[in-house]
């Protein structure tokens, strides 16, 4: 089962890895990769059949608000491509869209204290349908694998916190991405401050390669030269009411208090017919290498 809404992956300088795209291809999930014009031939050579390339319209870079005074002297990050994705999705008549970082290795489902990888796109459909139950949920996505301990109790989702790296976004909103850094945090906070709700799923998780560990993306432009201080400072400057700067393990980080938004209550759409109990959407656990898994993988 595939998601109903289009998936976009902004990517820059990472045609040799393309982790998220390759993973989605392995899961049989079609998607778009948004690239800059000068790199398209590299991506053409590297992409899988499930991926469709889109060239980023330069206007999105020129008109992007980086929230600083540095203009074009530094990369503006993935924000312009994310805005391009938003508008592309709207033009296609979609009510939601997914936008994902390009360095996700795996997607997982958590249940019964087990983390098992997802072999197809059913989980994306589940997340979409869950969000569509509510009239005031505007952004959602899976939590990071590293933030979950499989032996600990947790809820299937957490409401009203930051959604990052893999974002399902409702299209009919006036927001757009902004900021040279921490765009995810900024967008989440703007939505939450306006009383909307976000949903971070623990039932489904993403396993990202550490941001600064693989080349390409923002690594060269941002972190190699300047460290993490400007990145954290920006979100503190934009949201001083809930964000503050902290130093941990020799690096600067930002701490955001999402506590004020815990009372943004989820409001179900009227006349929603929700079945009681469990609906696994046909998902079942198989052993990799077992006969059933082999048959399934062969059928892809």
């Amino acid at each position, binding site marked *: *089962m595939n998601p109903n809404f289009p998936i976009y992956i902004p990517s820059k300088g990472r045609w040799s890895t393309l982790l998220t795209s390759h993973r989605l291809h392995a899961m*049989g999930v079609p998607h778009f990769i948004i690239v800059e014009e000068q790199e398209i031939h590299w991506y053409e050579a590297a992409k899988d059949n499930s991926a469709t390339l889109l060239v980023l319209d330069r206007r999105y870079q020129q008109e992007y608000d980086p929230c600083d005074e540095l203009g074009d002297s530094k990369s503006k990050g993935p924000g312009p491509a994310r805005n391009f994705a938003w508008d592309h999705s709207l033009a296609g008549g979609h009510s939601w869209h997914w936008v994902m970082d390009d360095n996700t290795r795996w997607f997982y*489902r*958590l*249940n*019964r*204290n*087990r*983390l*098992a*990888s*997802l*072999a*197809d*796109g*059913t*989980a994306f459909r*589940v997340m979409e349908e*869950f969000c569509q139950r509510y009239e005031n949920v505007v952004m959602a996505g899976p939590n990071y694998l590293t933030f979950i301990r*499989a*032996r*600990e*109790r*947790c*809820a*299937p*989702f*957490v*409401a009203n916190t930051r959604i990052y790296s893999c974002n399902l976004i409702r299209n009919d909103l006036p927001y757009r991405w902004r900021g040279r850094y921490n765009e995810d945090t900024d967008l989440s906070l703007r939505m939450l401050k306006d009383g909307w709700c976000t949903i971070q799923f*623990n*039932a489904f998780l993403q396993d990202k390669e550490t941001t600064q560990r693989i080349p390409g993306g923002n690594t060269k432009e941002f972190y190699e030269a300047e460290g993490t201080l400007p990145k954290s400072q920006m979100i503190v400057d934009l949201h001083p009411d809930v964000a503050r700067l902290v130093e941990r393990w020799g690096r600067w980080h930002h701490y955001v208090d999402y506590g004020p938004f*815990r*009372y943004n*209550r*989820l409001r179900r759409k009227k006349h929603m017919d*929700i*079945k*009681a*109990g*469990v*609906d*696994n*959407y*046909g*998902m*079942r*656990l*198989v*052993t*990799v*290498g077992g006969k*059933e*898994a082999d048959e*399934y993988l062969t059928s*892809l």
Partner: protein
Amino acid sequence: MLTSTLADSNSLDRVITEGEETLDDLLANPYNYDLFSRRPPDLLSNVLEGWGWRQRVIVNRQSGHIIDGCTYLEGAIASDEKVISAIYVDLDDAEECALIGALDWLRIMVGRDGPTLAFLRQAGESNEPLKGLLDALDAIDLSMEWQGMPEFTQDKINAWGAIRVNFLSATDRDGFAALIGQTITDQTHSIWYPKREIDHCTLNCYVSDES
């Protein structure tokens, strides 16, 4: 109508008196979500018939509100009683609300958009035990929203016990591993016995029937 005073003799120092309350004098609690009309009419009498009306209701003397015991009150009214046994407590608004939350969380859950929860959340900002209660309610609340979604059972797994086993050599370690039928490597920090499939299962994946 107060018939006796407990005051200093009671270990709950906010309980100040006990007595009998005239039903007409009792005030319904505005924070207590009203479930009366949702209960099947015969349920109360069927369940409580054999118990009589000995259970006391709790009444806040400051506000005159019933804190707990609405079920018995309802039964007393249905039985055309005139008075009911009561315990009186002396609580301000925040304390009253917190006590309702602790005694009757299910009603709060059902009326979770109502004034009680809003009041409790405000009070919980500066009250750690109350905040803990609200966090627990939130977790239940979120799980209730997950109806019709894929199974999600995620409890804390605690070991019954743990011991530290020391080996003089790698050979001894390997011998122990063979003895219990598990693999132990230099990277192994802990194991379960019997072996449990928890955490990261690299050998499993989820597939879908419709794919």
